[in-house]
């Protein structure tokens, strides 16, 4: 009997016993659904983390010179205290480093704190107050929706002008144009000159509740002690230039701070890679746990299929006897039952792939997670399904093949 014949027979059997086959394939179905679904979620998280999370917090090919890392996970208390004792990054440090870098870069100062913004008696609380220099908008890729960003002159002069985040503008001005209106931050008046395009949110936190003013404007007093910035942001053109820039920065800072060769740096340089460390740790756990769960589902699925196949062999003993009396060889019977179990498993896997893809599309539409189904996961799903079918089918099929035709024919 040809393999094709065996598969056709297997499909006929599958359709004839829909309910039983449905139960048989459910384990593989769940396993493969989970495989495709979780793979696409991890994929999506990866994209999200590398492109959005890290990009938003740090920027591509960009590093931040800071006193200490600001995005960190599982840092112990003593480290934290040591970080707090480090000297701050001063205007003079930022100026010297920006001037001393020999590679093409754009730089900006950056300081932030939380505070309230007021307009005409309306108060928006818990707003990120940001003091920056003019290139900040370019570096962070902030597009201006209305108005304009502040200029180099305004930045240098410390003009009392602000650019608002989208949500903040909505909240204070509800529909009317905020341009040229005067908002007050801690009693000081600032003229609104621009609104930044909506940024959306990151892990549920709005990215649009901020106000940006020149670093040298009076906002300086709200965010940092005099002459101090949180960070110098340096954007380079390539990863290689970023490494070079970081080396140069480290050398300059060490010399400015008179650090001896064996002393540790008392400043930090943050890159998106650093931010991604956390995600990498998490995804490593997912990569370890995910396959385990898939494996469990597939093993259970395999056992179910094996049981169903053993039942089928017992029920169809007479059929096997008939087939043998008509000239079926052992390998014909073996192939028939193997084809049946593989067909059950592969059909289960196919449904699982469908469900996994559906799940991923649903996530894509309903959440900001860019879940994408990887073709490799589909291939793996089919292969695993087929593999489970073979492994689960071998024993029942070989039992069927070894049946004595006389005994088999006698069975009712």
């Amino acid at each position: 009997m040809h393999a094709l014949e065996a598969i056709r027979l297997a499909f006929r059997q599958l359709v004839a016993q829909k309910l039983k086959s449905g139960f048989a394939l459910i384990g593989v179905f769940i396993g493969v659904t989970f495989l495709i679904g979780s793979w696409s979620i991890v994929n999506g998280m990866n994209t999200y983390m590398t492109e959005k999370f890290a990009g938003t917090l740090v920027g591509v090919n960009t590093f931040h010179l800071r006193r200490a890392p600001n995005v960190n996970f599982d840092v112990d208390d003593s480290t934290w205290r040591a970080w707090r004792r480090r000297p701050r990054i001063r205007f003079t440090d930022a100026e010297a480093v920006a001037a001393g870098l020999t590679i093409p870069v754009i730089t900006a100062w950056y300081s932030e704190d939380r505070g309230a913004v007021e307009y005409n008696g309306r108060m928006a609380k818990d707003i990120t107050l940001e003091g920056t220099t003019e290139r900040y908008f370019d570096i962070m890729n902030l597009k201006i929706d209305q108005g304009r960003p502040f200029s180099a002159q305004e930045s240098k002069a410390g003009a009392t002008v602000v650019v608002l985040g989208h949500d903040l503008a909505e909240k204070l001005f509800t529909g009317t144009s905020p341009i040229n209106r005067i908002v007050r931050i801690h009693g000081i008046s600032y003229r609104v000159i621009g609104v930044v395009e909506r940024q959306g949110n990151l892990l549920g936190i709005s990215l649009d509740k901020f106000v940006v003013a020149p670093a040298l404007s009076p906002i300086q007093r709200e965010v940092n002690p005099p002459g101090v910035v949180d960070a110098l942001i340096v954007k380079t053109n390539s990863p290689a230039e970023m490494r070079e820039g970081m080396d140069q920065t480290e050398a300059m800072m060490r010399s400015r701070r008179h650090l001896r060769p064996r002393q540790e740096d008392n400043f930090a340089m943050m890159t998106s890679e650093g931010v991604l460390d956390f995600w990498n740790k998490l995804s490593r756990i997912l990569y370890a746990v995910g396959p385990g769960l898939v494996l469990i589902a597939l093993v259970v699925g395999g056992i179910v299929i094996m049981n169903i196949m053993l039942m089928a062999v017992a029920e169809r003993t007479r059929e096997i006897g008939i087939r043998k009396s008509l000239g079926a060889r052992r390998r014909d019977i073996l192939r028939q039952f193997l084809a049946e179990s593989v067909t059950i498993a592969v059909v289960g896997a196919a449904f699982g792939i469908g469900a996994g893809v559906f799940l991923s599309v649903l996530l894509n539409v309903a959440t900001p997670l860019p879940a994408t189904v990887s073709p490799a996961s589909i291939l793996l799903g089919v292969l695993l399904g087929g593999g489970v079918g073979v492994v689960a089918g071998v024993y029942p099929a070989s039992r069927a093949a070894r049946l004595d035709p006389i005994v088999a024919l006698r069975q009712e």
Partner: protein
Amino acid sequence: MSRAQEFHTGDMPQPDIVILTHKLSRDYDMGSEVVRALRGVDLQIRRNEYVAVMGPSGSGKSTLMNLIGCLDTPTAGEYWLNGQQVSELADDDLARIRNKEIGFVFQTFNLLPRASALHNVELPLIYAGMASRARHDQAVSALTRVGLGDRMEHKPNELSGGQRQRVAIARALVNNPSILLADEPTGNLDSTTGQEIMGVFAELHRQGQTIVMVTHEADIAAHAARVVTLRDGLIATDQQKAA
């Protein structure tokens, strides 16, 4: 008709001998005792003979049937089918012999219940590795030959007992086997239908088919030209009906 030639181990059967058994025996090891179902049966059947094998239950006729049908192998002795000694063959070779040389007709029909009459008849051709077009045609002509050309798509449970047995006969004949081996072919049929099936057998015999039929009913055995009676694992009588 003259009695068959004396056969000795080491001989080859005469060319017109389809079935030859020599000192054929089959023991069943039942643990505490050995049941000797056949104790050395010598039987020769020529091409185009129509032989009925009779005997009370326990006489060994089912065992002989299984051995002739290559479903079982003897404990001792020789079995030659169509000039080939099959008593020594392995499992897969026996399957091939069953497929090519033997057509079974069973008391309980033994059709696949979920398959159409046509598919049932196609089965031996599938195992013979025939291409689907050719085997369809051949199965159709076999069904037409037994008068079921208009029932080919019916499932067994949509057919009467007589029709089912006709499907089984079509299936047995579809590969043009050397022998048609029937085990109580009328056992599950009423006497009218039984006579009908015997009519089919007579027609096949007239067309040159060799038929071996196991039965315990004397009036069914009477349709055969030769009646072999078994008792206690040995041939008791072997009577040729006067032509």
